[in-house]
């Protein structure tokens, strides 16, 4: 049995980087002019930094809209891509999904 990490031996990960170079936070290319720029935020318990990604072609074809109506269409929007970085420079990826629970006082 092996865990499903993508932290080693996964050349495809390097071949298909998550974020195109022009979208890194440190990059200040021309595209940044159109990108919503978040104002400085205080550190919070969950989110320490916020940002925006854009697909490479979104500037050219405009954002596409998809009606999400059927059960199977909705399933495509239950997951989140998780990209992790490690102290030794490794990067890995995994999957998360949004789970909703109702809570009440104990």
């Amino acid at each position, binding site marked *: *049995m*092996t*865990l*499903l*990490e*993508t932290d080693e031996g996964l050349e*495809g*990960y390097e071949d*298909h980087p*998550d974020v195109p170079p022009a979208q890194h936070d440190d990059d200040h290319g021309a595209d940044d002019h159109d990108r*919503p720029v978040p104002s400085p*935020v205080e550190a*919070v318990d*969950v*989110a*320490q*930094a*916020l*940002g*925006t*990604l854009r*697909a490479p072609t*979104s500037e050219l*074809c405009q954002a*596409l*809209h*998809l*009606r*999400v109506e059927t*059960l*199977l269409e*909705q*399933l*495509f*929007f*239950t*997951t*989140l*891509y*998780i*990209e*992790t*970085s*490690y*102290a030794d420079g490794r990067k*890995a*990826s*995994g*999957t*998360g*999904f*949004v*789970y*909703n*629970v*109702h*809570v*009440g*006082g*104990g």
Partner: protein
Amino acid sequence: MVTNKHVIEGAETARLRFVACEDDTMSAPLLGQAHHIDIQAPGTLFTGHPTGDVDVAVLPISPGVSRLKEHGQFVFFRAVTSAVSMDDASVQTLDAMEEVTFLGYPNGLYDQVNFLPIARRGHTATPPAVDYGGQPVFLVDASVFPGSSGSPVFLAQTGTYSIRNTGAYVGQRVMLLGVLAAVYQRTVPVLQVPTATASFVRDAIDIGIVYKARTINEAVDVALAPHGLKRSSEEPPDQVAQPSASQDPLSEQ
């Protein structure tokens, strides 16, 4: 959010990526755009399942999503509600072999233009009602690859489907069966010519390990307890198991 412990353990940072939405109505996704939340030392913020070897972890994301909204960054997602999670009652509606659907990012693969995951299908390889090996897991016969860790595993049936010991129905039903965590591998010898020495590679045998949905609730309970909170049921637990063509089991929040 639900994922596996091993996805975030030891990481310095974790970036969660959401598909964007034009406004806060979640009416339609803005394909081609995404927003993200960066988390420092994610291992300290996630709550793991109380049993050490149960590879399930949860994180409240409402604060992060709210902060995105404050900055005009709206996201589109569908939340899986606890009402559609497999539990002791709904598992009795499942047969020993059922088709399963799971979504994720196998080998880091996804639609890089639209930021959509990859869906795959397979079948249960052990009866979902049985704890395989005495653990809260069942196996699936499916092509499972690294990067799929944390994928939700659904029973997603549309059209005609059957409920165990009941009959056939027309409509749709969805059930969250669990969280994909690992895959079995075998060691395959590789003969190297002309030296005739052998080396070995590890080959996935398409048998995946899924932690049952109840482990998610158990982890959520641990996360809520320090805040004096408990889960409360919002719908009858067996509602999803009933045939329904109009029910929308996925929520927008």
